[in-house]
């Protein structure tokens, strides 16, 4: 396992990424408050792999994605793509670079221009990044629609004429249109029904193989994550709590939060209805006012005074690391 990992070429390196959002103060005299949406995370994405980010809602997954895309300027930290610091790029270079890193957004309703037909949306993507000569565009568009399972007639329809899942597929087609190297899939398949989801997942896998694509896959659906990922990263309250290969993580979860997550997966199997579950206690802490020490201590069944006082470091081996004082 170790050997394969080291051999791989890092394509995206994130170091010490922080993204804080200011929060409105109630009065002038209150101290300045911030949401630490992403609080000092570092990880490396290797070429050709799928790295998933899971974690509870609001833990900073989308924010991480947006920071990588340079949609919001990160508060701190560097993002290197193929060794180049994205921050150091000129506007023009950055624009070119964007073709390599694509995104499929969580919310398909908001991410399509209501005035553009599908044809325009796709065509524009191809034209901007100049990936397909105009004469080939029409053919390519049909291909793309076919990949994502939309009828050809969709080309001349407008986003509001589609259902949620259909819109998501338009978003996927748009991302694929520019032949990216990395795709950040922010809940890209959450809105899809299973049959399409299966198609899309297969498609993503196939594309990955054929074109050596790299995915940063953000999802809650752990079965999907398990299916698609090579490695999985677990986030909690803006911090990384566990990272490891799919097998390491699903078979020997180290962090108590990961364990709880795994046990909560709903299973499409009526017989296992009364399965043993780790039900987390305590309130979900707020990123506005995160707990001291280990961020998870308020809900952790194993928490001790130590956890309250000290932030545990990432420890582990063979590419499997977790942030807990009490790793077995």
């Amino acid at each position, binding site marked *: 396992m170790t050997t394969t990992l080291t051999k791989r070429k890092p394509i995206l390196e994130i170091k010490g990424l922080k993204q804080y959002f200011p929060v409105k103060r109630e009065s002038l005299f209150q101290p300045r408050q911030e949401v630490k949406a992403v609080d000092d995370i570092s990880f490396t994405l290797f070429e050709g792999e799928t790295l998933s980010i899971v974690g*509870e*809602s609001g833990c900073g997954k989308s924010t991480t994605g947006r920071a990588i895309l340079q949609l919001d300027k990160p508060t701190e930290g560097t993002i290197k793509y193929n060794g180049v610091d994205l921050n150091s790029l000129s506007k023009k270079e950055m624009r070119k670079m964007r073709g390599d890193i694509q995104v499929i957004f969580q919310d398909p309703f908001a991410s399509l221009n209501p005035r553009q037909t599908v044809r325009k949306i796709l065509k524009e993507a191809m034209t901007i990044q100049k990936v397909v000569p105009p004469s080939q565009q029409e053919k390519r568009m049909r291909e793309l629609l076919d990949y994502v399972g939309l009828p050809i007639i969709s080309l001349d329809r407008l986003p509001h004429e589609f259902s*949620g899942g*259909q819109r998501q597929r338009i978003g996927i087609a748009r991302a694929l249109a520019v032949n990216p190297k990395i795709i950040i899939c922010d809940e890209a398949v959450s809105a899809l029904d299973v*049959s399409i*989801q299966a198609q899309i*997942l297969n498609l993503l896998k196939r594309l990955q193989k054929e074109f050596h694509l790299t995915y940063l896959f953000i999802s*809650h659906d752990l079965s999907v994550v398990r299916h698609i990922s090579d490695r999985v990263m677990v986030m909690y309250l803006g911090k990384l709590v566990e990272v490891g290969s799919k097998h390491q993580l699903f078979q020997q979860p180290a962090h108590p939060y990961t364990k709880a997550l795994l046990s909560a997966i709903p299973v499409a199997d009526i*017989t296992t209805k009364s399965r043993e579950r780790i039900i987390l206690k305590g309130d979900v802490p707020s990123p506005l006012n995160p707990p001291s020490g280990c961020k998870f201590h308020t809900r952790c069944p194993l928490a001790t005074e130590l956890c309250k006082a000290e932030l545990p470091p990432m420890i582990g081996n063979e590419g499997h690391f977790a942030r807990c004082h009490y790793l077995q």
Partner: protein
Amino acid sequence: MSKEVVLEVSNLKTHFSSKNGVTKAVDGIDFVLHESETLGIVGESGCGKSMTSLSILRLVPSPPGEIVDGTISLKGKNILQMSEKEMRHVRGNQISMIFQEPMTSLNPVIPVGEQIAEAIRVHQRLNKKEAWKKAVEMLELVGIPSPEKRAKQEPFQLSGGMRQRVMIAMALACNPEVLIADEPTTALDVTIQAQILKLMKDLQKKLNMGIIFITHDLGVVAELCDKVAVMYAGQIVEYSTAEQLFTNPKHPYTSGLMSSLPKLHEDQEELQTMKGNVPSPYDMPKGCRFSPRCPLATAQCHVEEPSLNTLDDGSQIRCFLYSQNIQQKGVEAE
């Protein structure tokens, strides 16, 4: 079941008309919902799940959409014939809805707490302060940390999952008799999802609430639903109890769905998929709408449209494979 019927939908048809023709988004749907019962609706994206639920609240965008036929009766009263004022009383109070798209369904410029409190105030005699308190409680209930602070924030300041939980809190705030949840947990992580599902179950027990749960997460369906309607291209193709569905899926589409699921405990290189695509709404295939994609389709399937037949075990299937054991019973199978 001896429980009272709260909502009965029969032959509901909602069509969209446009230059290119008529989209039959919902094309003759029947189902009943009892109190304390959860009905799951699953199906291909675009098959009309959301439109069915919007039709129940009479919120289909019109024009171009229109409910062209059918009845929807809430405790015996036909919603489609209610005055706008009566309808206001129904909405948010007797039937409330969690919308699929949390970003655009929340007013971008009003603090989320206010949006919940407002729903409470129209239907309950509470003053501003009390309603606000209740709203904050609701946010807490759906697992939003620091609810007092979050209540004062506006939707864009919340993450996708939080927004969805706000929607849920809003829908549950008035203790409705019927809750329509349109993919309420898609954006939630599993621990929160579990929490929410538990909350819904608890509330259901307490209030005898009937729930229509639209999702494509079959895991959630298995966990939560009593009955399931599987929709395909505007029609119900299979309607049965959850147990029957998961132990013995009958319609080829249903079994196709089941097999498309990624497995949690085994590695698959490729997921199983159904061939082909959802038919274009303007260009419905002749005969059975699923026939072009059906691995078991026969010649008959391509010309003749099957009807919804009730089987011995009470489930209803729209497929010629099962038409041999047609039983002329009512829709009610229990």
